[in-house]
Every structure is written in structure tokens, then in C-alpha cells.
């Protein structure tokens, strides 16, 4: 008998989606590591591509199974697609077509081993489709009106989406710097600051937005439970560290600790769209905490302070102010209505 209306996939199904998505994402980060660290990639048929594309195939098969299961139960057309899975059903063939174009691109132009990997149009198409697929558990939780807290798969999905965005902004990723490099960059001679100081500073501001935006986004919809920020930081810092072959583990650990501190802040402030002051305060304090832990970690790990005090103490403050600005943009004051 034909069934009307769309159905939810359920938390168990979302867990499987996020597990398969993890396989998919790890494949991408392995591939990114290989492109960054192995200079002689002679073939498209590498173990890294195999993990990546098999992860995609497994995710695609799973989502098709969810649709087929609903079809078996009498749902037809869009009604056969679980709530929140629609964009993923569209993104799967987009990803597949981009995969073929990527293969063709590699065959004609060769295999990228430097920053150009992040600008190849086929890679950008793959990444965009991948983020839509990976965001599926986040969408299903967002659309579930019976919940006032995000599901764990939704948090994992949030973390993976943020890490994918940061992967494609790798040239402005501050998390990949080892402690020694951070202290050195901010220890320049007065009047002789070079471009590399500016590069790390700009990287901190870009990374700050990528780390803060998911939390501000989620806080508009849910009361975020303790562990939210830590989960996101573990995924973002962990996957970023994997690209450097874990040469910056100390800084990654400092960022995870900043996630724990941010979780305490979340519990204390309970920022939400309705609690605008707390929401904006969170937007200011989260970056301040994160980057103080970042510089604090670098100082503890190297046993010395950066010599230019103004910059390393001011950078967290600028990040905090930009976070406040972002919070204002996420939840602006209502436009006054003329009476």
C-alpha cells in the first residue's frame, strides 16, 4: 500500500551515515597527506584514493539503501527520501561526476603536489559535494523539532564539515604550525617583521572563523551540551594534524584543551538566539580562550615567550573582536518596523 509523507531515517541510521562519512573523510585527509608529503605520486590508483573512493561508494550504497527501504514500504518519489537526506541524494551523483572529471584532469594535467591541489576545480567540486553529504546527520537533527539538543552524529557531522572547510583553506590553517614555529614567527626584530608573521596572523583569523562559525550556527538552533566544542576541536585539530604527519601534536592538544574550556563556557552562558547578550559574549570569549591556549601551548612546549609581546597578546584579542562581529552578524538586532 502506498504511504504518504516523508519519514525520518532515525538516530541509528544517522550513526551509520556518520561512520561511513568518517571513512570517506579519513580517505580525503590521507589523500591530502599523500599529496603534501609524497613527491612521487605516479598513479591515480593509490591506496589513499582507494580509501577515499571506497568510502564514498559505501556512503552512496548506504544512502541508496535507505531510499530503497522506504520504497519497499510503499513510499514513492520524494517521500522515499528520508528527511534531511534530500541534498545528499543530489550530491552523490555530483560527487561521482566530479570524480570522473578529477581522473580526467589528473590524466591530462598530472597530479598536483603543492598548493594548487586546493584550487583544482574538480577538487573543489568534490569537496563541496562531500560537505553536503557529510552534513546529512546535521540536517536531520536540525529538522527534528522534537529535540532541543543536537544528536551525537550531528556534532560529529558539524566537526567533519568544519575540518573539510579548513582542509581546503590549508594555506591559512593556523593549527598546522608546530610550537617552535609559532614562537619564532612572533619573535622578529622590531621593524623587521616579514611576510611570514603576517601569514600566521592571517591564518589565525581565518582558522578562528572556521572554528567559531559552526558553534555559533549550532547555538542558534540548540542548547549545546558539554562536549560539543571538544568534539569539534578533536576532529578539526586531529585531522589537520594528520596532514602534517602529527608533527604538531602539542598544538593540537592545546586546541583540544581549549575545546574543553569552551564547553565550560557554553554550560555557563547557554548562548542562544533568545539570549543575545550571552550569544555575543560567547562569540567574543570563545576565540579569546582558543588562541590564548594556542599561544600558551606554544610557550609551554618551547619553554620561552615570543619576544614581541604586543602581537602575541593582541592577536587573540583581535580574533575575539572578529568573533563578536560574527556573532552580531549571525543574530542581528531585528530591523525596526515603522508604526
Amino acid at each position, binding site marked *: 500500500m502506498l504511504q504518504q509523507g516523508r519519514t525520518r531515517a532515525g538516530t541509528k541510521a544517522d550513526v551509520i551515515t556518520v561512520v561511513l562519512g568518517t571513512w570517506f573523510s579519513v580517505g580525503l585527509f590521507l589523500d591530502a597527506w599523500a599529496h603534501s608529503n609524497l613527491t612521487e605520486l605516479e598513479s591515480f590508483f593509490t591506496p589513499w584514493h*582507494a580509501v577515499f573512493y*571506497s568510502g564514498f561508494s559505501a556512503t552512496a550504497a548506504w544512502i541508496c539503501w535507505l*531510499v530503497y527501504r522506504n520504497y519497499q514500504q510503499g513510499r514513492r518519489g520524494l517521500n*522515499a527520501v528520508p528527511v534531511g537526506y534530500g541534498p545528499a541524494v543530489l550530491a*552523490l551523483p555530483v560527487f561521482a561526476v566530479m570524480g570522473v572529471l578529477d581522473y580526467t584532469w589528473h590524466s591530462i594535467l598530472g597530479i598536483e603536489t603543492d598548493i594548487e591541489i586546493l584550487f583544482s576545480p574538480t577538487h573543489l567540486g568534490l569537496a563541496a559535494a562531500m560537505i553536503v553529504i557529510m552534513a546529512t546527520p546535521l540536517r536531520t537533527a536540525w529538522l527534528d523539532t522534537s529535540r532541543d539538543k543536537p544528536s551525537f552524529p550531528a556534532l560529529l557531522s558539524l566537526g567533519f564539515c568544519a575540518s573539510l572547510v579548513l582542509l581546503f583553506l590549508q594555506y591559512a590553517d593556523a593549527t598546522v604550525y608546530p610550537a617552535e614555529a609559532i614562537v619564532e614567527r612572533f619573535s622578529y626584530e622590531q621593524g623587521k617583521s616579514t611576510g611570514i608573521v603576517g601569514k600566521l596572523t592571517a591564518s589565525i583569523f581565518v582558522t578562528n572563523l572556521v572554528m567559531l562559525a559552526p558553534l555559533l550556527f549550532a547555538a542558534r538552533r540548540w542548547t549545546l551540551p558539554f562536549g560539543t566544542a571538544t568534539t569539534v576541536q578533536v576532529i578539526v585539530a586531529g585531522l589537520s594534524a594528520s596532514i602534517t604527519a602529527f608533527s604538531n601534536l602539542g598544538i593540537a592538544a592545546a586546541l583540544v584543551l581549549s575545546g574543553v574550556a569552551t564547553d565550560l563556557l557554553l554550560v555557563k552562558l547557554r548562548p542562544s538566539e533568545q539570549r543575545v547578550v550571552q550569544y555575543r559574549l560567547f562569540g567574543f570569549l570563545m576565540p579569546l580562550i582558543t588562541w590564548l591556549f594556542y599561544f600558551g601551548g606554544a610557550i609551554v612546549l618551547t619553554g620561552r615567550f615570543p619576544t614581541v609581546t604586543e602581537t602575541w597578546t593582541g592577536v587573540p584579542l583581535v580574533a575575539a573582536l572578529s568573533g563578536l562581529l560574527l556573532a552580531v552578524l549571525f543574530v542581528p538586532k531585528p530591523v525596526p518596523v515603522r508604526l
Partner: protein
Amino acid sequence: MRVLLLVLGLLLVGTPVAHAHAGGLTPQNHLSAVTSVDPPLSGVQVRMINHGTQLEVRNDGSAPLVIAGRTVRPGETARFRDDRTTADTWQIPLGESVVRGTTTRYDAPNALMWLLITVAVAALGVFLGRGLAWLAVATVLVTAANVAHALGSTMVVTGGSFLPLFVGASGVGLVCWPLAVLCAGAAVARKPATAFVAATVGAMLVVASIPDFDSFRFAQLPFAGSADLDRALVAITLGGGLALAVGGFSWMRRETAA
């Protein structure tokens, strides 16, 4: 079903080809080989490896050797590509000696015949849709052919670790092979999911094996066995995969229509 077929159809058209021969080796109609080292060097072995694409120099002698700008010390083995080895007859200085070799050209096989064999295997899909047991047996057989192809193309590679090469050659096999086991289990339990899994494995294997069409066009295949055996495995994977996709979907259509 139309949504599902549309998505699977697009996936079929577009899924990246993550399966082929290991180590970047490709089929070709020529093969280079070393014929002699003149004058012979005691303890030194020279041969073409990796489907005739690389020269390997193993120095078990007592003195260092220089070849193509590289120094091979006693106890060392050097492997490298050298474009000179693609000429019909070639020679490369090796210390005071010369490595001589030839490149043999071969006629391409009858691609049309292999294509017809593939189509004939694919035609079995009409019968596979009649029962879950047939679908499961065919899934296991087609997958076994795929595993054998991946193993054979990995074993022919010299100078790399087996596991990464095998994983690279397996591609979406990493998903298809466990799914084939799942398909057999589902058939034993008489679950309708058997047809879905069979169709999925079939569709994935077809797409993954598309680059292997080259096995029908070229004489020399990078495979640890006879080239005809590899072509047969590719024909079974491609044709059988298509048969599974067709058979699985026709079973699902009948079931949902009933």
C-alpha cells in the same frame, strides 16, 4: 524506484574509476627486456621489472657501479625508469660494461571477441533476476574474479609493499568484497535485501572495471599470469557486474510491483 534508479544511474555514469592495475602499470603492446650485460660483471644482475617499465640493477659485487648517473654500491639495488629502454634495440653503459636489451612489439588481441564474451556474460542478467540464490551465487563468483584480478595485478609489481599496492588496486573492491559476503548471508536467510546488495555490487564493479577495457585492446597486461586469464577475469567482472545490476533491479521491480 525512479529516484533510486536515477541516482544509481548517475553514479554508474560518473563514479570514479578507482580500480585498475596496481602501481600505475598499464597494458601495452610492447615489452622491453634485458638481453645481456657485456662484458658480464661478477655478482651484478640487471633486468627489466614492473611490466618492462623500470630497469633494476642489483649489485652483489665488490665495487660500486655507475649507471644513468646513479651510483649503485655493493649490496644495493637500484630501480629506475629510463626512456632509452623503449627503443627496439637499446644499450645503457654500466660502469665499464654495457647493458643491452630489446623491445618486442606484439599484435593486439581480438578486442571484439572479448567484448562479445563480455556481452554474453552480461546477458545472463536476464536469468539472474529469477531467484535470490542465483543472484547470490553470481555475486560471489563475479567478486571472486575481481579479487583474482586485483591480486594478479598486485603480484606483478616489484619494489613496493604488497598491502598498499593491493589496496590501491582494489579500489571500491574494499566495499564490494564485504558486500558480496553480506549478499551470500542475506540469501541464506532468504532476505529480499539480497537483490539490492547484488545490484549494488554489480553496478560498482562495472564502473570500477571500466579502465580494464584496455585489457581487451592490448597484448601485454601487467598481471601475474597469462594475459588471456586476466582478460577472462575482466570479462566476468564487467559482464557479470552488469548482469548482477540488471538481475538485481529486475528482481526488486517485480517484488515492489507484486
